[in-house]
């Protein structure tokens, strides 16, 4: 434990960086250069802060730590309340880790409005971390929705040709979710009189209201995940976003929906969660199978990976709502792992995009010859994405399926087919881009990874393998908080809905004593 407000410092440090960057004056070239350095240092410093917090974090406790609480909107009893537990800490680390990666990835690539770009990224970082440390629902909401603004800008200003369409679509989908969530938040407040999340997690909300609240929050989180059928904004957003935008979008922003389920839906509305469990399961299965098949026929590298993200997030929602230890821990692990793997995959797409300015799969082929290092890195990431044991991708996926199998074997069997489809589309992508006939001369004259790119990708690759071989580094710290969540969930959903328990459709096993 530490005796200074580490969470606030960490959250607002990037904003301090923004202020400094705003103060940078001079001619354009110099400003760009200084801004980049400033942004990088600030984000690295934030990451160092996050690591420091991690070393002081007590992994055996399920309680919120580094708690800060002070009065904010006094007449309403809304507090400025922050804290970290085993569930949120790794999302903070992930955000703080990926931001400098993104800034570095944009180093030589973003050439217009460099200053604004870096500001957008630092604001984004601040809001992301804020989302994961907030323990007051209003504070959470502000950060959670605030994230969209810098993201809009990143897509809209530095994006591709159809950026306006994509931004509009992104806006429309998320707006729908946001409004409903806000209404839900108001209703929650008027029912309980508090917006304090730890308090709400203990509160008993009447079942009738729970259903409506669950749906309102679900709308927002499902769009963010994104779940089928509100996923169509994601491929477009990814395709138009610059590389750094895609990395952070896939790496962190998609996890906010899952985090929301863990912080709101499951603990606050346990009865409703149990009631809607089949609904979520089947949406997840559709997401896994449907988007995997769609990924199979994509011609655009980014679209393919975007669709694969939807499928992977399908595993996450499936795992979380099994409400089993393995399912939830697997879901969390899958989110972290996917953040690393898909982030790195988008970096990889960025590498060849920077050289050839196209994402069309058929424009590449046979580049293993001229880019052997790239081929190796891409191979490991591809294997992580298909969930090969020994990579982080396997641990999450397997635990989710294990959790699902305990609840409903049919659901698990359907979801497990995603493992086959996942291999199909990723191998096909790899084969068409890296192997395959060598027909495009410009693709064959591309240079291999330079030091900057290697410096970005190698740490990610090492993390992916390390977490695949020793996941307990993460799992052990997650599990106290997850156990607490599950204990609470079971205690409360069992008490209040006796008759509805059957609807959870637990496939019981008769012989087990």
């Amino acid at each position, binding site marked *: 434990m530490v005796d200074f407000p580490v969470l606030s410092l960490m959250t607002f440090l990037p904003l301090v960086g923004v202020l400094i960057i705003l103060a940078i004056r001079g001619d354009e070239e110099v400003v760009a250069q200084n801004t980049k350095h400033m942004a990088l240092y600030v984000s690295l410093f934030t990451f160092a802060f996050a690591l420091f917090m991690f070393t002081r974090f007590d992994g055996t406790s399920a309680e919120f730590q580094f708690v800060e609480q002070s009065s904010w909107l006094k007449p*309403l009893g809304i507090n400025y309340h922050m804290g970290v537990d085993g569930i949120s800490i790794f999302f903070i680390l992930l955000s703080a880790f990926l931001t400098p990666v993104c800034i570095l990835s944009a180093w030589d690539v973003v050439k217009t409005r460099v200053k604004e770009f870096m500001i957008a990224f630092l604001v984004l970082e601040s809001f992301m971390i804020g989302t994961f440390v907030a323990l007051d629902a209003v504070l959470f909401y502000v950060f959670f929705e605030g994230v969209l603004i810098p993201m809009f800008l990143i897509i809209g200003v530095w994006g591709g040709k159809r950026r306006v369409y994509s931004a*509009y679509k992104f806006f429309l989908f998320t707006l729908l979710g946001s409004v409903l969530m806000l209404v839900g938040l108001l209703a929650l407040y008027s029912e309980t009189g508090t917006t304090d999340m730890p308090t709400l997690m203990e509160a008993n909300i009447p079942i009738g209201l729970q259903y409506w609240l669950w749906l309102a929050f679900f709308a927002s989180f499902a769009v963010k995940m994104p779940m089928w059928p509100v996923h169509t904004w994601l491929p477009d957003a990814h395709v138009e976003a610059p590389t750094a935008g895609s990395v952070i979008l896939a790496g962190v922003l998609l996890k906010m929906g899952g985090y929301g389920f863990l912080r709101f839906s499951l603990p606050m509305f346990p009865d409703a969660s149990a009631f809607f469990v089949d609904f979520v399961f089947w949406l997840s299965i559709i997401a896994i199978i449907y988007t995997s098949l769609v990924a199979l*026929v994509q011609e655009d590298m980014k679209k393919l990976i975007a669709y694969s993200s939807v499928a992977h997030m399908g595993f996450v929602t499936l795992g979380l709502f099994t409400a089993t230890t393995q399912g939830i821990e697997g879901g969390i692990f899958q989110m972290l792992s996917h953040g690393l793997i898909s982030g790195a995959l988008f970096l990889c797409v960025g590498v060849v995009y920077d050289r050839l300015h196209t994402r069309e799969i058929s424009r590449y082929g046979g580049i293993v010859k001229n880019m052997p290092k790239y081929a190796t890195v891409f191979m490991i990431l591809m294997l992580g994405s298909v969930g090969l044991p020994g990579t982080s991708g396997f641990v999450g996926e397997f635990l989710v399926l294990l959790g699902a199998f305990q609840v409903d074997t049919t659901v698990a069997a359907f979801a497990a087919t995603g493992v086959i489809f996942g291999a199909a589309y990723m191998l096909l992508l790899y084969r068409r881009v890296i*192997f395959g006939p060598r027909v495009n001369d410009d693709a064959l004259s591309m240079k291999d990874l330079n030091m900057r790119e290697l410096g970005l990708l190698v740490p990610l690759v090492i993390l992916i393998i390390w977490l695949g071989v020793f996941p307990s580094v993460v*799992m052990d710290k997650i599990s106290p908080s997850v156990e607490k969540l599950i204990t609470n969930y079971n205690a409360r959903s069992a008490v209040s809905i006796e008759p509805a328990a059957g609807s959870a459709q637990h496939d019981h096993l008769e012989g087990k004593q």
Partner: protein
Amino acid sequence: MELLAVFLPLIAFAIAGLFGKKIGDKGCQFITCAAVIIAALSSISLFFNVAYGGTAYTTVLADWINSGDFHIKWALRIDTLSVVMMCVINIVSACVHVYSIGYMSHDEAKGRFMAYLSLFTFAMLMLVTSDNLLQLFFGWEGVGLASYLLIGFWNHKESANAAAQKAFIVNRVGDFGLALGMMAIFVIFGTIQFDAIFSQVPEMAETYFTFLGGEYHALTIIGLLLFIGAIGKSAQLGLHTWLPDAMEGPTPVSALIHAATMVTAGVFLVARMSPLYEFAPDALMVVTVVGATTAFVAATIGLTQFDIKRVIAYSTMSQLGYMFFALGVSAYGAAMFHLMTHAFFKALLFLGAGSVIHAMSDEQDMRKMGGIWKKIPITYGLMWVGSLALAGIPPFAGYFSKDIVLEAAWADGTWFGHYAYYMGIAAAFMTAFYSWRLLLMTFHGKPRASEKVMSHVHESPTVMLGPLVVLAAGALFAGMVFYQGFVGSAGHHGDDHGTAHVEAEHHGEEEHGDTHEPVVIHDEGAEVIHAAEDGEEEHHAEDFVLSKETFWNQSIQVLAANDTVEAAHNVPKWVKYLPLVMGLLGISLAYVFYMFRPNAPSVTVTSFKELHTLFYNKWFFDEIYHHVFTKTAFLLGLFFWKFGDKKIIDGYGPDGSASVSNKVANLMSRFQSGYVYQYAFMMMIAVIGLISWFVFKGSSAGGAL
């Protein structure tokens, strides 16, 4: 010792993979070969320590996954079953490593090739030394990866890439079953650690559980799910289509991965899970039928192929079928025996074929060979050894193992045991025929290759022939030497194979008392008794008698009622001799067809047109799968994308509402510049507006509360 045997190949892979450029091709070859040879020597030493009167043990390395009550550790389980596998893997791998120095000498990526071979060896060792199903799965997928990398090693060839991808995806279908089986085990047993599962099996024998909406016998479901994994990895009928295509890889790969080791992982899995399968007779029945059918079907295809490697590939598939039906009739020891001998003679055949291909300037079509036996006499002689072993001619290794497999199938006495026996006999006939068809077409007759190729035909260098000699020694002696240990009866150690036998009662009652007999769980009545409970551990050292029971030392378990290997020693004489007779007949027929009556093949083909078409086209599996699965998946993908996403979701969602709101938007175009700034800004205003409303509303509500 076991650390050396398992991790040296990994270290060699890491060095050759990461620093291959720095240490050069020679450095890579030296490091990988040295590592695997040391690993092989360690395995042999482990084998004699553990299998001949030693004890099994487990070395725990580190935690892997802990989640709730799901605990998995990285660990090495060293018992007879795993050391047998380790020996097979490391010895064949060492031979293949050394052989590859010669075979790949013209290739430009030698270092990478050696690194992949070592990676494969490591993954395979992890598979067989695992003490839980998850680590087994790690190795299982790891060998799949190595196989993928090596099949597609010549990645400038589209056909190699396609074959690699096919191998990975088809295997994934099998892995899907294996993963589900693993989960089912966890749900039923609460663990996936082998010892913990096995100790609970008898009490779980009558458990039922709900799977896919139906109520089933739990152990049968588990057995079948695991077997789906085995079908994929071991190329059994249904998921076999990847194996022939895998021949796109360099020949040493085919020898190591697609003949001797990886494809036997499925056999190993079932043998490892023998304590569970023993209580799932219906699952065993399926294993038998699938294995026997595969043995037959693969042999029929092998009769008609012209690519020398594909003939051997189908032969491998067929021999794996033998191993599976042996497992299915509870003759696990016999299956492992055949696995071991097959590894030697099949690796020998493949490497020999590689030597031929090397000599023929990379020609693989047997129609373009012939008349070369005088030019490459050593290869020719070694191919004879391999073929004799494969055809089951005494005293070669295949004779002992194939015979015990077939005898055990007969001795099982069930309809599927007999089915397996007859299928096996038919396959034995065809095996002998296509083996000699291969020998005669390749080496004898008039040369059918071009002058240029023929002038280049040369014997392979020592670095390639050396490993062949080692394997040939295995193909010659492994059967005789290890017969007693793998499948020998406790009452009759000695070379009395095929003659004497013991009465079942005699064996069951009397020997039980004085020979240490821990493998067999006697299932008398409903009771399950561990023979080892009799507490004669102290007699162990002095009374050590090599028999299958002492050899396996509980690493495989058989119910006494199912001990078909024991019963195999007592089958009628004709059952014992029929395989040999069929083998000799097959060889003779091949001589008639391909030496004395050269027009016989074409006459046969025309008179059995339909059958030949069926066999030659591999029973049309590829075509059917292509239409039913591959095409459908792509069509569905397109449909979901173009229709589901674009037409329905976007059409009625954002785009639909966009067109409606366009009119409104036009009115507001002053505010609506189309830039995201504006949206974001409006969004922020909306949020602030709502919050202020909320503050206002809230304060009054707060008053009301």
